[in-house]
């Protein structure tokens, strides 16, 4: 390998290592302490140091290159012969390769490391949350919940012996209290599910149920068959007969308890069929507690619960999830197309996505007309995202009425208040719109492209995203151009000492990267002003053209200055 290339590589690696060490020490001081789990300590410090190192890599590179050609290739060594450009050509190749590596680092590695660091912070916060919930459940002797929460915690912090002990204890006590119960967990699993897709097989089940005088089941299967094939006369007759039998059954052979059960099931089933969903849910839930092994109850409760979940969320889900780490202060326009006249704005205080769904706290939405008249205005304390809408009413498990309902401050006259709010963005998009969403600096290019597409759809200007994209595209050019200039500057003003510089000069060398950091920030800022101006004047395509032209000119000047250097 040529001397100039070797010199540059060795100097750069030395400066990089030293810089990284400095940032690692700085990150040690920045470590948030109790906010991060001990097991993430080293990785967090390294990830933070890496982020800071990459953020300042251009002045660090300028320092390394200037040092290589100014201090280590200076006077006092044997005078080089030939043209300077020919002598440094291998070093230029090293710079180009470094520039390529830098592009990969800022394009992929840095966002990945930033994401990993955020994950460590997120998982630490989640673990703390699970631990608090587990401890609370433990103290309340809610053993099953304590087991669930501790298991969640140990999935993150698997080496924590103290929590393992508590989990074992909660399990043991939970088993002891469960042994007193007659029913098993299977009691509440669905009896069976509808898998048949053709009306005839459903009718076969209905006939079978009718022959066993199980009129509720007969009605149930016949109704489904009728939904699939509304023209089927047998199904219509079967529904009619089953309904009549349910209304006046022959109960002479049954004891009083069975009569009461049958009446309760019929009432619950009728409520369900009459769209009194919450009442049916409440009745089946109560029946499930009293008659956990009853076939009908086991069959219908899950189905009614599923139907309930389509119009309401279960409040215990909210209680378990809403305090988990999430995105706060989300605000967006739901129909941002200009020209439609009406506008809807949606505000969400907190949004949390877990394995069971996406939950929101503090939802407020308002629609206004072009003249400023409020068309509707709704508030809801909690909501759950389901199929493009937020369910705004919540019901306690087994409850009769929703505990949470949306509060319509304004609603169009004559219209029923809706229990759900339709929104265009997906939960993934919504997480990008909050205060704690990804920052432009740490977002990957892919994320920035997604944001550039999303922002105009939800009322935001795409200007800031395009600016971030432009600045990201600029970085590899800056790296190479600054390196080329540093070679020229370093060589022109190289040291004139025969041996090493005196101690005071060596001691003051760290001043150089500090000053270079300010110069690099100024260089970056000037580019930001230029790109920002062009973006305002002509949009993103023109900005891309200007970036390329300006960088081409700067590259040409840098190479011309290099070519003009004398080797002696």
């Amino acid at each position: 390998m040529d001397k100039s290339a070797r010199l540059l590589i060795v100097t750069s690696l030395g400066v990089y290592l030293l810089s990284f060490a400095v940032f690692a020490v700085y990150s040690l001081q920045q470590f948030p302490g109790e906010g991060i789990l001990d097991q993430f300590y080293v990785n967090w410090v390294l990830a933070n140091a890496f982020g800071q190192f990459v953020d300042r890599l251009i002045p660090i590179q300028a320092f390394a290159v200037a040092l290589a050609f100014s201090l280590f290739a200076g006077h006092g060594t044997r005078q080089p012969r030939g043209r300077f450009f020919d002598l440094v050509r291998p070093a230029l190749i090293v710079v180009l390769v470094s520039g390529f590596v830098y592009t990969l680092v800022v394009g992929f590695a840095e966002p990945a490391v930033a994401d990993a660091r955020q994950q460590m912070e997120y998982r630490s916060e989640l673990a703390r949350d699970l631990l608090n919930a587990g401890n609370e459940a433990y103290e309340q002797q809610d053993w099953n919940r304590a087991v669930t929460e501790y298991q969640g915690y140990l999935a993150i912090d698997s080496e924590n012996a103290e929590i393992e002990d508590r989990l074992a204890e909660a399990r043991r006590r939970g088993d002891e209290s469960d042994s007193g119960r007659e029913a098993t967990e299977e009691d509440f699993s669905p009896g069976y599910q509808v898998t048949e897709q053709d009306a005839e097989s459903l009718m076969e089940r209905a006939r079978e149920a009718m022959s066993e005088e199980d009129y509720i089941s007969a009605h149930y299967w016949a109704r489904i068959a009728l939904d699939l094939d509304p023209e089927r006369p047998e199904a219509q007759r079967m529904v009619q007969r089953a309904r009549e039998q349910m209304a006046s059954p022959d109960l002479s052979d049954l004891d009083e308890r069975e009569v009461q059960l049958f009446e309760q099931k019929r009432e619950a089933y009728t409520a369900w069929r009459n769209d009194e969903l919450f009442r049916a849910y409440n009745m089946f839930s109560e029946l499930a507690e009293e008659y956990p092994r009853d076939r009908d109850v086991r069959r219908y409760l899950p189905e009614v619960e599923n139907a309930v979940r389509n119009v309401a969320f279960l409040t215990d889900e909210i209680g378990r999830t809403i305090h988990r780490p999430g995105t706060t202060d989300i605000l967006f326009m739901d129909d941002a197309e200009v020209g439609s006249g009406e506008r809807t704005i949606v505000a969400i205080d907190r949004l949390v996505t877990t394995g069971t769904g996406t939950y929101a706290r503090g939802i407020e939405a308002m629609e206004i007309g072009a003249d400023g008249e409020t068309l509707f205005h709704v508030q809801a304390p909690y909501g759950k995202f389901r199929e493009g809408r937020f369910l705004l009413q919540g019901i306690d498990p087994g409850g009769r009425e929703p505990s949470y309902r949306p509060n319509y401050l304004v609603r169009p006259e004559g219209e029923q208040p809706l229990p759900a709010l339709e929104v265009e963005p997906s939960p993934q998009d919504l997480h990008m719109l909050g205060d704690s969403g990804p920052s432009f600096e740490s977002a990957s290019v892919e994320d920035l492209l997604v944001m550039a597409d999303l922002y105009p759809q939800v009322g935001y200007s795409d200007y800031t995203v395009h600016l971030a994209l432009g600045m990201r595209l600029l970085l590899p050019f800056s790296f190479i151009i600054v390196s080329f200039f540093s070679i020229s500057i370093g060589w022109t003003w190289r040291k004139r000492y025969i041996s090493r510089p005196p101690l005071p000069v060596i001691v003051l060398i760290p001043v150089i990267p500090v000053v270079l950091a300010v110069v690099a920030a100024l260089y970056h800022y000037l580019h930001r002003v230029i790109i920002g101006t062009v973006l305002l004047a002509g949009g993103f395509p023109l900005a891309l053209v200007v970036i390329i032209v300006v960088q081409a000119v700067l590259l040409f000047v840098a190479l011309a200055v290099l070519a003009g250097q004398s080797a002696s």
Partner: protein
Amino acid sequence: MLRFAEVKHIVRLFVRFVLLLAAFLVLFVAATAAVRWVTFHQLGNAPPGSALASLLVQAGRPTILPAIIVTTLVTLFSLLRFSAGRAFALLLTFLLTGLSITFTMIGADYLEHVVSPVSAPLGRRLDPNILYRADNIDFYALDRDGAVFEPVLVHETGRDPALSVFQQAEQDRDSGSLLFRGATDRQLGLDAVENGYWKAFEAPQHVEQLFRDISVAASSFDENARLDNIDFLLLSGSLALVLTSLWVVVRLSRWPLFNIILSLGMARAVFATFYVIQSPSVRDFLGIVLSNQEMEYALPGAFVTLSVLLLLVSVLLPPFHHWKREVSGG
């Protein structure tokens, strides 16, 4: 007795200083005015005469000191080529620097009083159908007519309900704020808006600190900039002295790159001194030993002290002709 060649050098130094200062002033003023013009999103509109004059004058004062400092540094580096008459050249550099500070500041003061009040202030451009977010108030206007927006959807953190409609909002260019007209008016300073296009033109931390220090330095001269004001002349003279003293740094070592970067660092430190001396904590500290009246001389005192220290360092340096022979072989 100066020889003809030395006189020629001196004359050339004088001319170069004046031309460089003029060039840097024009460059910095133009750049600052352009950034300011773009920050207020007036692209595509040629500024009217009074607005242009106002822009240039407003951009003028903060750029005077950077232009003078860069000019002085370049002049000091050019002195390295002098083989004789350096003492006189240094004296001339000191005088030119001092006179530049004094008269440009007096000129800026005069222009500000004459030109600025004529022009209407610039306001940041807000667009309808854009959701703007700030600390406590977020807003979305449906339409705009000049500086009036109507109607405006507003989201206020900490209020219940958080969403409301204001039939009108007016942009007040004087205060740089937006006034929401409703049952209870609200006012939002546009500096607090987080996603305005103008945020693109806000400098990053290091540059922002530099601009802040430059601004503080410029404002140190903005009161009583008159030839009969001793305090003003003292500050100008002490600043010129410390800038000329950077000559010691310019030839500090036999490593030119190190000298250049250290001089830039020292120039940065001079700006920082303005800010540090005027910070309340330092003033409190100095108040222990200085009276209020003496405190007025803290800044010139700091510059003179720094100059004396640099002069002491110069005693330790090898003679200039030795340095010159080793560095440039001449």
